């Protein structure tokens, strides 16, 4: 294989990596803003499944992509509302609540999905998600094909990542959110509505996880299949740590993890012996490495929100 065709093959791999990373990116952005509010929601997998099944079902019924995506976001936020009620209002254990949300979401999705197997996404919905080349940017050699020759939801995910980065680091409300996650008592004393911030961001985070799930069932595959996320929600939980709760880094991290997901498939072309099982472990191995390095460096920038996982009692001030 000569250098030119190798480069072309690599570009095809990277294009596929961006696509494979997109459901991860949505879920990671959702979980990032959730965790920034101090709540660890381990229900990502369940919320993605709820979004995936709701998006698919409403896509079939309404034949309208906007309704389908809205339904996906609403369904997943409904799941996160249960979590928010349990952990913010009732101050229940966040790990247990998140895990039950995962089991609950998988069950609901399986139940509703029973009748969806073998059904096809209507053409009117599919037409919305055909790849569209962005003028100028799409013509840059290499980069244009890899990043700017995709469907509309991928472009939306770029904008969301950048928008959430600006929100988190450059706006008053973003500062408040970070304060709630770092030190809710101080934020409360400063007059910030701690519970309101938590609720809003847990719900918005759920909606984004739902979009990630709907991306799988409506655009990526697109067909319904039992347990369609196949553990990608857990990868997103690891990814949030990997990108240090930073939406900008999430953009790169998601494509990196998406690439790892399909790397084995592209390597099988060559005479390289890499076991798929090793490749499946890589996202978790790199996450552990990142955890080790950040805790050695004690870097403040990469540390988790200080009050993450701790219920906030006003009385405890």
């Amino acid at each position, binding site marked *: 294989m000569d250098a030119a065709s190798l480069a072309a093959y690599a570009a095809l791999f990277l294009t596929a990596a961006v696509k494979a990373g997109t459901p991860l990116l949505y879920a990671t952005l959702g979980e990032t803003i959730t965790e920034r509010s101090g709540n660890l929601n381990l229900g990502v997998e369940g919320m993605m499944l709820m979004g995936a099944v709701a998006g698919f079902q409403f896509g079939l019924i309404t034949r309208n992509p906007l309704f389908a995506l809205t339904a996906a976001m609403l369904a997943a936020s409904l799941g996160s509302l249960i979590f928010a009620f349990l952990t913010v209002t009732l101050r229940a254990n966040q790990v247990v609540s998140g895990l039950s949300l995962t089991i609950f979401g998988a069950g609901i999705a399986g139940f509703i999905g029973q009748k969806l197997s073998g059904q096809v996404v209507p053409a009117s919905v599919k037409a919305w998600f055909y790849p569209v080349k962005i003028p100028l940017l799409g013509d840059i050699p290499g980069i244009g094909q890899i990043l700017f020759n995709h469907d509309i939801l991928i472009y939306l995910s770029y904008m969301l990542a950048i928008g959430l980065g600006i929100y988190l680091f450059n706006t008053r409300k973003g500062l408040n959110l970070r304060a709630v996650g770092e030190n809710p008592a101080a934020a409360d004393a400063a007059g910030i509505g701690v519970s309101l911030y938590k609720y809003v961001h847990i719900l918005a985070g759920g909606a984004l996880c739902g979009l990630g799930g709907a991306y*799988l069932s409506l655009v990526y595959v697109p067909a319904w299949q039992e347990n369609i996320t196949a553990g990608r929600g857990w990868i997103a939980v690891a990814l949030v740590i990997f990108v240090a709760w930073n939406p900008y880094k999430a953009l790169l991290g998601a494509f990196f993890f998406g690439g790892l997901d399909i790397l084995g498939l592209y390597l099988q072309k060559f005479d390289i012996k890499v076991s798929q099982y090793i490749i499946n472990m890589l996202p978790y191995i790199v996450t552990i490495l990142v955890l080790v390095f950040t805790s050695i460096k004690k870097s403040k920038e990469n540390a988790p929100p200080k009050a993450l996982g701790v219920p906030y009692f006003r009385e405890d001030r």
Partner: protein
Amino acid sequence: MSRKVTSIMLVIVLALSLVFTAGCGTGASNGKVKVGFVFIGPIKDGGWTEAHYNGMNYLKEQLKVETMYRELVPEGPESKKAIKELINAGCNVIFTTSFGYMDPTLEAAKENPKVKFFHCSGFKTAENMSNYFGRMYEPRYLSGIVAGLKTKTNKIGYVAAYEIPEVINGINAFTLGVQSVNPNAVVKVRWSHTWIDSALEKAAAVALLDDGCDVITQHNDSTATYIAAQERGAYAIGYNLDMPSAAPKAYMTAPVWNWGVYYVQEVKAIMEGTWKAAAYQGGIKEGLLDLAPLTEVAPPEAKAKVEEARKQIIDGTLQVFKGPIKDQSGNIKVPEGKTLNYEDTMSMDMNWFVQGVEGKIEVQK
């Protein structure tokens, strides 16, 4: 404190609500034949389990017997619980339809000598336990003919689940079929290492299309590979079930299971009192499996060629694994005058690819 209690209760309610989502048919025991099935996937999976479920419905229709099933039953000890539940509900004939149910089925057979057991795709039998499977390589070979005639790039992609004899012999039979009509074509294999992850199966198909393939087939349980082919203007061959609706512009045909043929035959024998436990393997001749009708997308010249080869398979003049067969490096693996039988193709010695396959098997030692 009471808040904590409330929250714990809510969590329990959430967890319990799952239990009620599992569905199952019911019915009373009445001393007649009542047949229970244990399924690994959901009954509408569009693949393996749905093929068995269709077989169960065919049995119900033909013999008017009562049936019930448990779906989404994990392999291993959990499956024994499902078998027990079916027996408690009055089933006296049990079919377990995944490889990993083999030992639990055998244990249950020993504990319930009056119940008759059938295990799919394994190799153990007992006085009251049969096993059953089929020569899938026969319709795989036929589907290879269709692919070999269709390809323009002479590169055909094969998304495969795991490096096990059942999958490997399918790839080999398919490739032999391809080469019988198109000696220049190669079959490229990508291992997905999953039965059930449609997103990854799609990615594997895309990787093959990126590598220049224009016909894709698969040994996995979802329809994602056909969709991938359709999106790129390529063509696809399915597996398990005839599913042209998943990708009508790409789908050409599929090797399919007709489990109902076997289910009716065995339950009939039980009702007539002539049943004996055995190891059964059927092929096209027995009607257990076949190639689904070719769609309009399939090459027009394929129909006659497939029909001819199909007839020869039935009358025995064409045997898929008849020597001489060379492996990837050109060594004669099956010498002239020798033919691999069903047992050979399912044994652990089936760990090599025929000439014309591009891919690797990691042999475990």
